[in-house]
């Protein structure tokens, strides 16, 4: 799991080249935390600006990485999980 700086409003992420493009990511939405919400990234787009919750789930999916200027907003969770 990736821990997210919840104070960050938006995080820029981009697709990791190679492999099949991710078309769906489930995440826990802070506005509706009791169930999963779904994010459907446009397969034709490479870069996205998304909420911190989506960014964390997208990175965990293995199909995305945080772009350089947003990297400070995502940090490894303590304990190395």
């Amino acid at each position, binding site marked *: 799991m990736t821990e997210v700086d919840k104070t960050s409003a938006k995080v820029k992420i981009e697709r990791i080249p190679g*492999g099949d493009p991710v078309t769906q990511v489930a995440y826990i939405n802070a506005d509706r935390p009791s*169930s999963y919400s779904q994010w459907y990234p446009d397969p034709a787009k490479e870069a996205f600006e998304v909420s911190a919750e989506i960014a964390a789930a997208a990175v965990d999916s293995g199909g995305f990485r945080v772009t350089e200027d947003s990297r400070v907003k995502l940090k490894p969770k303590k304990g190395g999980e």
Partner: protein
Amino acid sequence: MGTPASYKWLIGTIKAEGSFGVAMATADLTDWYKIKEADFSALDTIFESDEDEINGFVGATDYTVQERRGTMARKAKASVELITWALGMMLGNVSSSGATPNYTQTIKWRNVCAVNPPSFSFIEGEDCVGQTATNWLYKGVVINTLTLEFNGKGPGALTLGLMHDGSETAQPSVIFPVAGAAYIVNKLFGYHLTVKLGPLGTEDITPILRSWKMTLNSGIVEPPSMAAGVLVPEYQYGPKNPKIDIEITVKANKAHPIYGYYQASTPTEVKCISALTLTANRSITLTQTKTIVTATAKPVGNEVQLDLKVMEKHNATDGGPGAFVCKTGLANLLTPSP
């Protein structure tokens, strides 16, 4: 009159309710999956009566509807599409990737913070002339149990236990697909199943398989509610649910290594991979990276068999007791409707 054989039901394979109990758009409910029995949705009504009061008579004199909810079953021949839809609808934690026509859904266990399963709506009815009054929409539907079973080479049996919010909404204008226009599925047979079970996860036990059964249970509970109206406002996963049970029967006796895994003073941790594969792009694979297996010997005809039970064990690799990878033609699942 309609007939059981005219029974049809419609779901939206890639759609789900955006909010529990808010009906999906009927335009999204177009997928008719063949099922084996006309299991009409049952409406369960809890009545409050004055039978427990001294009312001057022997029995009750009035009844008030206190609450409504509903249940139904769906029994179908196993297919990649219906199983994938049901897994996504039960667990909610879905990642999809790929491009037309081949996609991959990775479906994992719910996060401990997730309380509510996804929900969906569906329409059922008897598709006969003059029977539009049998067409009803059900909403707030969750999947409580999923059972998938293979015995020998035959088609797999998929059974779903569903619960709805207790409402029934007439849909007289719905048009069901004509006969022959059922949703196109890839059916799964016993000979599509391979199972690897052992410390390495490469030990193929497919040649000695006799039967394989998976049971998923969300342990759905309806918390006490004082929300307005008589319908169910929320279904929740039961505590420590969903749970998974895998029961396998193999042609083997106590000399088989699997019995040794179980018999060891410290039972051997094993990896179990159950794969249903039609083609490279249409398959369902369940991986249980770290688990414990029990084994019981029994006589069947002229052979000795071991009944195996793969015990549920959370592991970090799978993010739960197991993870499903489904290769389908579905770009994604659980798109909110409307």
